[in-house]
């Protein structure tokens, strides 16, 4: 199990203090002792560059970000931010009070972002799975299609989004050109895809278009390990396609799903680029996600404490959700390492 390397069970973690080969060695022989010392340093030496970078770029800024949630950082003191006044929980009170307009907006945005995440990840997984299952069989042009399906993932995110923004244009866009002019849907009214409640759906379409190839890639890789004779045996037993899918394919990709779904959910929940390119700095009310809201409440208003407070709350929520998820889902795959 691959991810077990990162998430080894608590029992294994507890026994890791003793180097694996230390036990049987005679204690008074000098040479192995030196070897032992070197070996105990080696693992740390190897992770050192990664650790330094993580501290500098991820952990350090995150701690500073948390700190910012407790100070009053505005345009008045941004040049001298080290001396910005400590205000305790004031930012949390201002920004997250469910009675206030800002607080209400925050909590409804979190709910909307959750729905968004579940929808996008779910659709991406279904499309990815469909592509993976059918491209696992042998036929002419298979390699070509496989490459082609991965193109949206390889495109820079900005390119994919701007293409969709161009297509979703109400008056001149390709989407209404097909739906209204060619198929005469929606009567004669050209719907607006980037305004009002439709904008939420439009954003989901763009995100799924960009994300599904990733699910496709990972699931297809997982299906490479399914031997064909298992299917043959099932077919001889009279299992239908759906039964084969349920009893053979699905269990085979379960370990891959564990981390795939988590990573995709985190990326989607924190989505910023797509709404920013589609709608600019202020999204329609029905399509405001958490990251753009935080952006608006920190960079838009030069009140970084407020945005910081929102971020911290989210971070806590995501952390709890992830820990819960790792406990619930990942250990299942972790025991056969």
């Amino acid at each position, binding site marked *: 199990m*691959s*991810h077990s390397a*990162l*998430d*080894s069970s608590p029992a294994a973690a507890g026994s890791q*203090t003793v180097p694996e080969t230390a036990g049987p060695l005679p204690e008074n022989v000098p040479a192995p002792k030196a070897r032992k010392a070197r*070996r105990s340093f*080696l693992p*740390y030496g190897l*992770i050192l*560059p*990664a*650790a330094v*970078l*993580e501290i500098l*770029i*991820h952990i*350090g*800024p*995150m701690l500073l970000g948390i700190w910012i949630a407790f100070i009053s950082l505005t345009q008045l003191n941004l040049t001298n931010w080290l001396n910005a006044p400590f205000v305790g929980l004031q930012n949390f009170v201002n920004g997250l009070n469910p009675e206030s307009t800002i607080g209400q907006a925050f909590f409804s945005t979190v709910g909307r972002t959750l729905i968004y995440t579940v929808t996008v990840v779910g659709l991406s997984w279904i499309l990815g799975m469909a*592509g993976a299952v059918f491209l696992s*069989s042998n036929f002419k042009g298979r390699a070509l299609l*496989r*490459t*082609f399906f*991965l*193109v*949206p993932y*390889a*495109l*820079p995110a*900005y*390119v994919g989004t*701007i*293409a*969709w923004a*161009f297509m979703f244009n109400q008056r001149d866009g390709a989407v209404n050109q097909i739906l209204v*002019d060619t198929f005469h849907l929606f009567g004669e009214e050209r719907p607006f895809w980037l305004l009002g409640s439709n904008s939420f759906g439009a954003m989901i379409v763009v995100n799924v*278009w960009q994300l599904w190839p990733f699910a496709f*890639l*990972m699931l297809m*890789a997982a299906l490479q*390990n399914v031997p064909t004779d298992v*299917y*043959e045996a099932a*077919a001889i037993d009279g299992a239908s*396609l759906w039964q084969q899918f349920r009893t053979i394919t699905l269990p085979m*990709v379960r*370990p891959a799903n564990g*981390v795939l779904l988590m*990573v995709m959910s*985190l*990326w989607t929940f*924190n989505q*910023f680029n797509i709404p920013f390119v589609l709608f600019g700095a202020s999204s329609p009310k029905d399509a405001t996600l958490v*990251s753009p809201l935080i952006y608006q409440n920190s960079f838009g208003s030069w009140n*970084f404490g407020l945005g910081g407070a929102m*971020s911290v709350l989210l971070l806590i929520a995501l*952390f709890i959700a*992830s820990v819960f998820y790792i406990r619930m889902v990942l250990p299942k795959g972790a025991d056969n390492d």
Partner: protein
Amino acid sequence: MIETRNFRILRNVVLTLLSLWVAVPLYVVVSTSLKPLKDVAGLFQWIPREITASPYFEIWTTVPLAKYFQNSLVITVCATICSVTVAVLAAYSIARLEFKGKRAFSLTVLSTQMFPGILFLLPLYLIFTQIRNLTGVQLQGSYLGLIITYMTFTLPFAIWMLSGYFASIPKELEEASMIDGTGRLGALFRVILPVAKPGIIAVAVYSFISAWGEVLFASVLTNEATKTLSLGLKSYASESDVFWNQLMAASVVVSLPVLIGFILVQKHLVAGLSAGAVK
């Protein structure tokens, strides 16, 4: 699955729909990039009335695209190489060696994926400012700052994928080599790396794609001299005018290097992932 007739019909239907879904936006981009600006303004034409390559020439003068291209190439290639190197070392340590704090390190690295990028945009900038003030090392507006930022962003996923891959390589391989007298590191470089080539390619592709398309941090950490390609695309749509055809042409140009690289290595990519990340 077993190829019954129903399976084949279903397969053709599903794959056709998926292909259309992928193809339509790509067609819109490419066809728009070949139209004169006046034809772009009105209702979208599926079949261009007039085809012209001139947007592909104009893009180089509307914004200094060649310079952005060079910047992106330097930053992305450096970030990818560094990221892969650092990830290989850390992943090997996690996959093969036992040490105190391993689980904590692994979980911390993976959990960085949950930070909203927006949370540490300003803090990162403030830290870079402090580093400059203290040491004189210029990280804002320089290649270096963006390189270490991008390589760190891709590290968690890269370490996770590679440690999975390394763990799947039989221990006997390197044990044999270590008995021959090579140390741990020797074994890593002589035995593991060649075997792990598909996994490393998969990680490199992932790092490259992530860095090539990033815009949020690039918009704050670069200046005119170090601006990246993805960021430069925005310049075709200014407040005073939107050059849709040039924007699309530039999009094609920006995407081509990634696509070509992707097509070249995608065979290894699937093999790498299937042996490593998803097993």
